[in-house]
Structure formats: structure tokens, C-alpha cells
């Protein structure tokens, strides 16, 4: 196989259909970009789940009365609640956090948002038992036993909150993947169409090739490589798009959440890890589409 020949054919082919080639590359890039975005969300959720797995807590919030008057949890009902919690089976540790500690913690989390801090008063923060469970899933036990007891204002379950948060993220991922799929379909049609046009504009050349006894490989490979090259350029564009999206958009809107440790930051490393998949998908899809198109629609 003369590679120089095949590649000069590919370059001529791509240049001959510049507008189609650009459309094909852009559609592929958008599709892959969305796919990449979806994969980044998947990675983020995975990281978060790993992050929180050992740290999930149930918070037992105490009433205003207790919060204001029993700073060290020495009186009833606070001390009674503490020992009851400690004796509940499945509880690993119980930490008492009074109103002042809670306010400090709040200030730390939201230090990036001074407007919010200005509005906050320590009186709004209840004293809290932070309960760590051996099995973070079994939060219902605490809720059932302590909700409504004297001195208890509410039982706050981080797990439930996180679950809803993950549901939101997974929804985002699904939307990205569905859009990616629709775009991929458009990309597929464009690739197929480009190959057909390309084969038509080169019919004289291909006719001569067939006549002088070129094998199927020689007549079809340029078209196939043309599609794959466009796919690869598309995936490079998509990766570039993801980098720009991270640098100029994602970092800005998620800075507060990442700095306070609520969601893990998406790094360039994440994009680097996702991009080989985008290349692979681009190559597989363009090669398959190319091959099927040549088989079904182009008589070479």
C-alpha cells in the first residue's frame, strides 16, 4: 500500500468539499463535546460519592431554647440526648457543636460570599449533634428515634440532600448525553452524505482506478480515511472546546462551591482522562459510517 498516494488523495478530497468538511467537523465536535461534558459529570458524581462516602453525617438540630442556654451540653435535655445517641446501635461517633462553633463553621464555608455573611446572625444557627454512622445509609434509625423528642428541632439528613443533588447532576448528565446522541446522528448523516458527494466528484478517478485493477482497499480507503480524519479533527476541536468551557465558564460559576469543598473541582486532568474516549468514539463512528456508506450507497 502506497501511503503517500492514499494521503494525497485524502487531502485533495477534504479540500474539494471544504464547506461539507467544516460542517462535518463542527457537528462531530459538538456531539463529542456534549459527550465529554456528560462524562465529566459522571466523573464528578463518582468523585463526590467517594468523597462523602466516609463522611456522611446525620445532624440532630436542637431547639432555640437549648441552643441559647446550654453551651456545653451539660443540662437536660441536651445531655440526655447525647447519651441516648451514643447508645444507639450503629452510631460511630457523636460530636456536639454549639451555636458559636456552628457560626464559625458557617463563616468558613461561605467566606467567598461576604454578602451572605453580612446577613447571617449566630441566632439563626442551632446547636447540633453531628452523628456519624457505621453504615451511612441507615439514617432512618436516627430520624425515627429522635425526631420530635423534647429539645430536638429537626433531624437533618445529609444523605437525603446529597441524593437529591446527585439526582440533579445525573439529570444534567442525561440531558448532555441525549443531546450528544442527537448530534451524533446528525454527524453520522453528514459523514455519510459527505462521502457520497466525495465519491460522486471523484467518480472519473475511481472509474479509472477500477479499470486498471485497483483493489477495493485502494478505491475505498481514501474515502474512509477522509471520514476518520474529519472525525479526529472534530474530537480535537471538542477537547479544545471543553478546555475553553472549563477555563472561561465552569471555573467561574462553580468557584464558590468548589472552594468550600461542596463539589470537587473539574481539572484539566479530568478532561485529559475523558478525551481518549472522545477520540475513540469519533474514530469508531466515522469509520463505521464510512464503511457502511461505501457498502450501501457507493458502487466503487
Amino acid at each position, binding site marked *: *500500500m*502506497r501511503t503517500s*498516494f492514499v494521503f494525497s488523495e485524502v487531502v485533495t478530497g477534504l479540500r474539494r468539499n471544504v464547506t461539507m468538511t467544516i460542517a462535518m467537523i463542527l457537528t462531530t465536535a459538538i456531539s463529542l463535546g456534549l459527550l465529554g461534558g456528560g462524562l465529566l459529570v459522571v466523573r464528578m458524581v463518582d468523585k463526590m460519592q467517594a468523597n462523602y462516602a466516609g463522611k456522611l453525617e446525620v445532624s440532630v438540630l436542637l431547639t432555640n431554647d437549648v441552643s441559647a442556654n446550654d453551651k456545653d451540653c451539660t443540662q437536660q435535655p441536651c445531655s440526655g440526648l447525647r447519651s441516648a445517641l451514643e447508645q444507639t446501635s450503629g452510631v460511630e461517633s457523636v460530636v456536639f457543636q454549639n451555636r458559636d462553633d456552628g457560626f464559625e463553621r458557617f463563616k468558613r464555608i461561605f467566606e467567598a460570599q461576604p454578602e451572605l455573611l453580612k446577613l447571617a446572625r449566630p441566632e439563626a444557627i442551632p446547636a447540633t449533634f453531628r452523628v456519624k454512622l457505621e453504615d451511612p445509609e441507615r439514617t432512618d434509625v436516627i430520624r425515627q428515634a429522635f425526631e420530635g423528642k423534647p429539645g430536638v428541632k429537626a433531624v437533618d439528613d445529609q444523605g437525603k440532600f446529597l441524593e437529591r443533588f446527585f439526582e440533579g447532576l445525573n439529570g444534567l448528565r442525561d440531558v448532555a448525553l441525549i443531546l450528544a446522541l442527537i448530534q451524533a446522528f446528525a454527524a453520522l448523516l453528514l459523514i455519510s452524505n459527505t462521502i457520497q458527494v466525495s465519491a460522486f466528484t471523484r467518480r*472519473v*478517478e475511481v*472509474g*479509472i*482506478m*477500477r*479499470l*486498471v*485493477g*485497483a*483493489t*477495493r482497499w*485502494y*478505491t475505498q480507503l481514501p474515502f474512509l480515511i477522509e471520514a476518520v480524519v474529519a472525525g479526529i479533527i472534530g474530537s480535537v476541536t471538542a477537547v479544545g472546546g471543553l478546555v475553553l468551557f472549563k477555563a472561561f465558564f465552569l471555573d467561574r460559576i462553580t468557584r464558590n462551591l468548589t472552594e468550600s469543598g461542596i463539589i470537587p473541582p473539574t481539572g484539566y486532568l479530568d478532561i485529559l482522562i475523558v478525551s481518549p474516549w472522545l477520540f475513540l468514539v469519533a474514530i469508531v463512528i466515522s469509520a463505521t459510517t464510512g464503511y457502511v456508506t461505501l457498502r450501501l450507497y457507493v458502487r466503487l
Partner: protein
Amino acid sequence: MIRLEHVSKVYKTSTRPALDDVSVEMEKGEFVFLIGPSGSGKSTFLRLLLREEVPTRGRVYVSNFDVAKMSRRRVPRLRQSIGCVFQDFRLLPTKTVAENVAFALEVIGKPRNTIVKVVPEVLQLVGLDGKEDRFPTELSGGEQQRVAIARAFVNRPLVLIADEPTGNLDPDTSQDIMLLLERINRTGTTVIMATHDHGIVDSMRRRVVELSYGKVVRDDARGVYGVGR
């Protein structure tokens, strides 16, 4: 070398057979004219040899290829041993004379050093040395046909097929092309030429196979185009 046994070809879109029970044999090194009016089946005959069409009935042999029965995968091998020339030259307008000839070798995977050696040789043979860097539009019809012949012959085929190669040329130029085909024939290459040019057939005195409505109606070893035409 070439043998057709009871070959019929009926195209899907027509009822009348383009070839009707044709049996004919051609030896290695022969020069054969295939004559007959337009629509008599000459091009169909040649396309069957190239496996551009398959016969509806009968068998076709070229060299040691069972053309009608062979698998698609082997068709390139068959075509590499046959050279083709047409009335309309079929050159690539974006390539020079030398590139057009080299193209035929490139696409069958011949190595570069072979190509740079044999292309000038064949251009010399057809009398185009000095014009290798011209584009087809910068050549006369006769010169373009020489390029096409060079391309057909550069891989030293066993058979050269020419479908009305002089159809677009004036009589003098046609005569030059015939001399070139004769020279190629003298190298041992079988030449089969479809034509309805009386003058050429009559002056060459070669074997003549005449088709009429898809049937072989005459096969003369040293024929003329025909009487009363």
C-alpha cells in the same frame, strides 16, 4: 487466450439480448477487429472480458481467468492483466501526462522506483517524450489518446482492449494511433479493437469478427469491413 462459449447477455432494462449465443476464440498475440453497427454489442463484448458485466448465459475465459465465475476479490488481478482505451480518452484533467500514466501504477501499489523507471519508457514508446509535464487540455486529441494508450500499456498487459479508440480522431491521426497499436501488438500483446471505421479495417487486413444484433455473423482471418457498405 480469450474464449467465449455460448455467451448471451440480456440487460435487465431491455428485452433484446445485447449478445446472443456468441462463441469465439482469440489467440495470444492476435490483432482482432470487432466490427458492427452501433448497438450491435461490441462494447458489451469488451465489458464482459473486463468483468464489468457478467454474462446472462455462457462462459468467458481470459488467460487463466474464468471471468464470469471468479470471485469479486480476484477481479482486480484480471483487470491488471488487461489494458483499456476508449473513444473519450478518460484522462484525469488535474494530472499531467506523466502523472496520468503513473496513476495507473500507483493505484495498484507499484513501488515508486518502478514507476519513475517505466513511465518515461512507455511515454517514449508512444511518442510523447518531451510532453510529460503537459496537462491533457494542452494536448491534441491524438496526443491525448497516446497518453491513454501509454496508461493502458504501462503495466505490460496480456491484452489491450480498445473501444472505438479512433472515434474522435481525424483520419490521419487515426492512422498514427493504428500504427501505435500495431507496434504494441508486435510486442506480443493481444489487441482487440471495436470500431466501425471502414478505412482502418480495410487497410490493416487483420482478423475481423463482425457482430449484428448481438450475433457473430462473420469471422475472417484477413478481413475487410464488408462489401456494399
